[in-house]
Structure formats: C-alpha cells, structure tokens
C-alpha cells in the first residue's frame, strides 16, 4: 500500500490522541495491536493509559487476533459526513473481538443489509492518506 495514492478522502481521518499512538503506528505495517494490562492480563478498548478493568498503569501493546463477532449493527442510509456520501448505504457495527474488547467499526459487505448480529468477521485494512490504516471488517469466508 505504501506510496499508493488512496484518492480523495472518503471519510474523516482520525487524529492521534494521548493513548492511541502505538495503535496507529502499528497500522502503518498493517499490524493489529491491542493494549493489554500486565497486572490483570486483560485487553481493553479504547486505548487508555490506565486499565479500566483493574486500574493497572502498566500497558503492554501486543498483536491481536483480528477476528470477532458482530455484536450490534446498523445500516446508515445517509452519510454521517458529506465526504462519505459515496459509501452509502454502509454498516456501522460493534464487533466483539476474539481477544475480548468490543470496538466500533464498519463491516464492508456487498449487501450491508444482510450483515447480522452474531456473524463472524475478520479484520481488513483501509488505507488512510498519511500511511496509517483504519481497522474495518468483512464477513468471514
């Protein structure tokens, strides 16, 4: 993907906050990492400097599975932002990752209306204009 022009921006490209830098850095190599707490051993999402499960402050960024189940899904018949107009209809979903946490994402599907709660999904990467990638999912198989 490096060097390829992703074309005009089709979505809002996320700024990097205080805790997200290791995640976004790994996406440059299309590596999917999650923050794990060294004290309780659990992963969390969204990234925090303090583990929301136990309060531990020692966070370990490790490669994660990149698969999960659709926990909830909604089809957007209109874009949330004008720049997404060509994407409609598209899904917004919460995915329960195999590694535990739940994250908001999109399920890229030929028929977005057919995506259902419980469907198994796998990670795919959508390039952003600055070399980072956005984690979205497709139906497994």
């Amino acid at each position: 993907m490096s060097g390829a022009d992703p074309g005009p921006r089709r979505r809002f490209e996320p700024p990097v906050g205080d805790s997200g830098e290791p995640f976004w850095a790994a996406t440059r190599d299309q590596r999917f990492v999650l923050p794990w707490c060294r004290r309780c051993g659990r992963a969390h999402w969204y990234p925090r400097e303090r583990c929301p499960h136990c309060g531990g402050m020692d966070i370990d960024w490790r490669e994660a599975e990149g698969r999960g189940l659709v926990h909830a899904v909604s089809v957007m018949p209109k874009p949330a932002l004008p720049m997404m107009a060509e994407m409609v209809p598209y899904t917004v979903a919460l995915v329960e990752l195999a590694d535990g946490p739940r994250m908001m994402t999109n399920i890229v599907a030929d028929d977005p209306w057919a995506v259902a709660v419980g469907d198994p999904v796998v990670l795919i990467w959508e390039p952003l204009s600055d070399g980072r990638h956005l984690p979205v999912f497709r139906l497994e198989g």
Partner: protein
Amino acid sequence: MGSDPRTEVRRRSRGAAAIVGAADLVSPTGELDGSTRRLEAQAIQAALDDAGLTMADVDGIFACTGGTFMPSIELAEYLGVQPSWTDATQTGGSSFEVLCEHAAAAIALGHCDVAVIVYAATPKSSFKKGGPGFGGGAQRAAALAGPVSPMVEWELPFGMRAPMGAYALAASRHMAMFGTTPEQLARIAVSTREWATMNPRARLRDPITIADVLASPYEASPLHKLDCCLVTDGAGAVVLTSAERAADCAKGGVFVLGTGTSHTHSMISAMPDLTVTAGAVSGPRAFDMAGITAADVDVLETYDSFTITVLLALEDLGFCAKGEGGPYVADGRLGPGGARPANTNGGGLAYTHPGMYGMFLLVEAVRQLRGECGPRQVPGAEIAVAHGCGGVLSSTSTVVLGTEATR
C-alpha cells in the same frame, strides 16, 4: 437496594421538597421567537408566576445550558440573582431530572429555599438561519473544537450518524437477544402520537399507524424516521421549595418523593450492555427512596428520544422484565386508556424536542398530578415518574413525584 443503609438516610428527605411552579414554551410550528436567554427568562417568570413567587425569592440557580462555559453564573448575573446554591451539572437530556434531584437535596439540607431550574434551546430556528442545530452537526462541531477526544479518534472515522446510530445499535442488539420486532418499537410511536392528538400544543397531531412508522425511511436501521424524536425549539422552567413553604404557594406542591441517578458510559461503543441502561440503577434507587414499586406509578413520563429509549426504560424501571418490553407495549398500553399511560403530552416524538427533553418530562408530570391536563388527563393520578435519559443511553435520572396525599 432495600438493604442499603443509605436508603434510610435518603428516605429522611422523602417529600421534603416540592415543585411549586412549572412552565414551558412550545409552539405547534416548532419555532419560537427570541434569544435563548430571553426564552429562559420568560420560562422562569412563568414558573415563578405559577408558584406565586418572585425573582427576589430565588436563592438556588440550576442551569446547564445557555451562555458560554459557566451557565449558572452567567444566568444568575443576567437575572440579578445572588444565590446560595449554584449547579450546572450537564448529563445530556437527563440533566433536568439530575438538577431536580440536586435541588430537592439542597432544599432538604437547608442550602437554599427557592430553586429555579431552566432550559431553552432553539435548534429548529437556528438551523434555518444556518447554524448547526442540534444532534450530529452540533455535537461533531463541539467535539472537533477541543483536544482529541476518544469519540473523535475511535468512533467518528466509522461514520455513525449521531445520535440515532447509537440508539440503532442498541435496538439491533435488543432485537437479536430478545426477538423484539420493528412493529413493537413502532407501537410506542403510535401510542405516543395518540396522546399528541389530544394536545393542541403538540408539534405533530395527526394519528399514525404501525405501517406508517415502518414505511417511513430508515434514519439508521432498524430505526425509522418515525421512531425518532423531533427537532424543535422549546423552553421550560420549574421552581422548587420546601414542603412547608409549598403550602403557601399558589397551587401547593407536587412533592419529590424519590430520586436516583447513574451513568454507564459516554460513547455507545463503551456501553457495558447495550440492552441495559443506567435506569436499572437510577430507577430502583428512586423507587426505594419513595417507598413505591412500579405498580404504584399512575403516570410515566419517560424520555423518548427514540422508541428504543422507551422500551429499555420500561424494562430497566421494572414495569416489565428484561427482554419483554416488545410484547409489553404491543397491546397499546402506553396510550390513552391503556394500562400504563406514558408520555401523555405526546413526548419528544410528537410534542417537542429541543435536544434535551428532560425538562418537559417534569413539567408534564406536574401538570398531570395537578389535574391540569384536560382531555389527556390521567384520572386520579397521584404518583408520576419523570425518567430522563441523556447522551447515547449514557445517563439516566429518575424522579418520583406525588400529590399531597402521597407524602
């Protein structure tokens, strides 16, 4: 809950404070003239007149919108009030139930004697003039203005329409877990509209059918346009004082019997369980303090930003079991003549919704308990519940109100 020793402490202030004045400004056109500050002042004056009190009596100021970043201070300056209690707690649409809880507690503990809670917003006329209105546009503009928030970093890139997309995700999960149907959600909108047909001040007064709801376009599946609240201008105010002083007010008091508040998350992606709101905590806390059960409630005013909001509240407050909200509402029991009258003014779905509807829950609950509601009056109403819900199913606050006979 009953075993919580603090419940006994809270019960000491059961009925210690009362709402003595209530007013709202709405228009069937959905639009109001004047600045929000002017509308706030008008609503406060109307509520004080309703109570037979004056601005000189006010020593508690409760405002979480208006002005810039110190809402209660800026409002007090505008009104010429120097209060002994100030409160600007912002929890979204539930804010006014939270402020009512705080006002009742402050009065019970002697921190202030006459509290004013106010709200005004004009998203409909502001949008027409080129402003952001309320909802997605306004929230996104605010989110992008500050430092990088988790919402901007971890939700905004995926293009969820706000706020309806968040509620749609909860509805999606509830349907998958419990078999709740679009028809059942639509029934809530139909029952609420039945009440609105009886309210000449409501924005939408034509009756609708389940088929109408299902035929309206999706805003975010599975929620249709008619599953979603209005966007209107509106303003409202309530005045609280002590039970003793309420006896001398123009219309007596509607007593604050119990209150409870909680919140579970800020972003929908962080909601612990998409099918359980903070109402499962705030409701039982309020009911325990009041010494009532769901069966004792005569009138329910519960936040209807979306039909799913009502369904989840019915379950979380214990009107039916978790997962059974769909069948519970399907017989039309929320409507006029039904067994569980709810949102008797037409609600946020049909009466008014300037963005934070919780104020209007309180105003309608007071009017029902005073017997002021004309054709939509629930006969013999003695106990009413105002249940606010703010953010994206994030915060809830439950206020149990009762007539003199229930004190």
